[in-house]
């Protein structure tokens, strides 16, 4: 264990999930207990790389008074950046030439100048790759996984998932009631590009008629049969929950996949980076649009489409996520105290552990076919479209 006083920088990349403020409080309280100084960088690395946008400074010393009671609040007091990628920073050159330039060395030099010993970065699967590249250049990184879809393979439960599950279930309840009142089939798309945990668990909670997840290719005729079966029982409404990464059986055949589906499934390239290219309009919704259209045609019942997308990320974090956020934050400090380098903090109940970032890259936690959730869902009479 190291007793040396440290200066740690904290940063958040790639979008919002509930519980980010709890991580800040966890890092600061645990760090201060060791007598360490914690500074926050605004908006990913933008606070350092684009200081002109921060007249009062792109970093802030995080004092205890500032973070006290923060864990219950929504949002993130340090902000987040759409992409946290110093390797591809969009800039305008002397010839008015727009280009993406590598500022990673500059970033590392800035952190050195600020006498930062290590950074704690809260990142999704995509930005973890960027952090790994920075670690290979000598930056001391501790990474905290962030996933509202709970799709990090290495951790059983990411903070943010429990809140998203709660918000999604609540919105599904509302959609179900609206469908009932108007005798329609509600088709609701929820987050989940690689993994269907959110759709499966939220859909199960509200006893939807059908849940379509990326792990189980669906046959739209079977989904329609489920709805028609309910109609025969004089129930003229329904609810179908669709994860944004769900795919029909026909899409699984090469050359039959739609371009839109492919583009949705592609992760973001570094060259889509920069404030000027922040994704002002998301292209989510294409999967559920297809499902809604086809169901309407096959069942002769009006469908009502709702794309929740990031709407299910807003709100006050649940107690579970407050605890998890605090725990991930405090554990990141413990990792540094134990002189760990370039690790990801993971929750493998009952413990929070540290694994190499290299081991965690490209590893997604998907719903296994023999999952208990799948078994229970089927036993409740909910169709998974297969």
């Amino acid at each position, binding site marked *: 264990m190291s007793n040396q006083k440290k200066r740690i920088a904290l940063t958040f990349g790639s979008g919002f999930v509930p519980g980010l403020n709890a991580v800040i409080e966890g890092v600061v309280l645990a760090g201060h207990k060791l007598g360490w100084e914690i500074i926050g960088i605004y908006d990913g690395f933008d606070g350092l790389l684009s200081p002109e946008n921060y007249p009062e400074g792109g970093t802030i010393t995080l004092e205890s008074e500032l973070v006290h009671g923060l864990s219950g609040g929504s949002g993130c007091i340090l902000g987040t950046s759409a992409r946290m990628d110093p390797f591809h920073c969009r800039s305008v050159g002397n010839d008015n*030439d727009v280009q993406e330039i590598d500022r990673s060395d500059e970033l590392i030099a800035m952190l050195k100048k600020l006498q930062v010993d290590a950074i704690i970065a809260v990142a999704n699967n995509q930005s973890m790759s960027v952090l790994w590249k920075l670690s290979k250049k000598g930056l001391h990184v501790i990474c905290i996984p962030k996933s509202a879809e709970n799709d990090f393979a290495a951790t059983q439960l990411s903070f943010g998932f429990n809140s998203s599950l709660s918000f999604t279930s609540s919105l599904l309840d509302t959609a179900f009631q609206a469908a009932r009142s108007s005798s329609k089939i509600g088709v609701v798309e929820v987050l989940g590009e690689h993994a269907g945990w959110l759709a499966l668990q939220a859909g199960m909670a509200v006893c939807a008629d059908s849940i379509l997840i990326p792990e189980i290719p669906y046959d739209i005729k079977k989904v329609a049969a489920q709805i028609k079966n309910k109609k025969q029982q004089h129930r003229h409404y329904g609810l179908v929950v669709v994860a944004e990464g769900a795919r029909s059986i026909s899409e699984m055949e*090469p050359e039959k996949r739609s371009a839109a589906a492919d583009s949705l499934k592609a992760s973001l390239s570094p060259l*889509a980076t920069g404030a000027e290219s922040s994704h002002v309009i998301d*292209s989510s919704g294409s999967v559920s649009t297809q499902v809604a259209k086809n169901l309407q045609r096959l069942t002769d019942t009006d469908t009502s489409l709702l794309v929740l997308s990031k709407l299910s990320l807003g709100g006050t974090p649940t107690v579970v996520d407050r605890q998890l956020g605090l725990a991930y934050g405090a554990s990141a400090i413990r990792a540094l105290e134990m002189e760990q380098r370039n690790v990801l903090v993971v929750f493998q109940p009952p413990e929070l552990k540290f694994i190499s970032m290299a081991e965690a890259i490209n590893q997604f936690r998907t719903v296994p076919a023999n999952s208990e959730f799948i078994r229970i869902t089927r036993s409740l009479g909910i169709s998974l479209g297969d």
Partner: protein
Amino acid sequence: MGTDTKGHVLNIQHFSTNDGPGIRTTVFLKGCSLRCKWCSNPESIQKKPELGYNAGKCIGKDECGLCMPECPETAIFTVDSENEVKINWDLCTNCGKCVSVCPSNALFEFGKWMTVEEVLQEVEQDSSFYRESGGGITISGGECMLQPEFVSELLAEAHQRGINTAIETAFNVPWSYAEKVLPHVDLVLHDHKLSDPERHKKWCGADNKLIRANQEKAYQTFPDKKFIARTPVMPGVNDDEENIRSVLSFILPYKNVVDYELLPYFRYGETKYGFLGRKYELADFDPPTNESLVKLRAIIDEAFDRKDYQNKK
């Protein structure tokens, strides 16, 4: 120098009818100095070769999987439930090693180096169509004038061989580049995307001060060249009368600007964004309505003192 000079070519498209008069062969070059959010050729933006991936053609890890061990950066991976591979674009360095082993061309490279002679050999295959239709060669991009040596030599050689020449440019290049290319061009199709510099920066990545300065200088320096101004019409961005009138007041003093065309936005590039692992930012933008185009074109016809010309074209 000469016909051995190499340029970074993205694609050569035969039988184009929208890139100048007659039937034309359009040579798309790689590299652009703007980042327009509506770009329909995203694969032309970067100056270096780039990996493209069409997941629809991937045979999958079970029957193939050759690319995965080939990647030195472990940027190619699979998710348990899916057979086709995925690309971690943050780790990919565009080394191209995976492209060479992919049997189905699911992995491919955008862009290749070609000499002036190689390009012209392909272009000349269409020469009989040029003669009959009044067509020729059009150099497009990206921003074609970012490769001034190659383009000037290519167009000079095309002239030598009796081929009509045109370029498509946004003029966002140093004037020295334009000065080198323009003497060899018969027709300059050039963009006026947005008049306001700040809004130009928001939507295209850089302001339009250099662009406007270059355009004025080009109109003045080359009075015998033909220029056609063009605006890619984006609903809610630049489809207002004020923007169109502002462009008109800029170009009308110059008699060598012979026309002003409106190019309605279409979602042509969407699939290609997927191939590059990028999200299409304007997925929810609809093309402009016919009514709005008719109205805007009438303003242009009035300014050029002609009746219902553009709307009948």
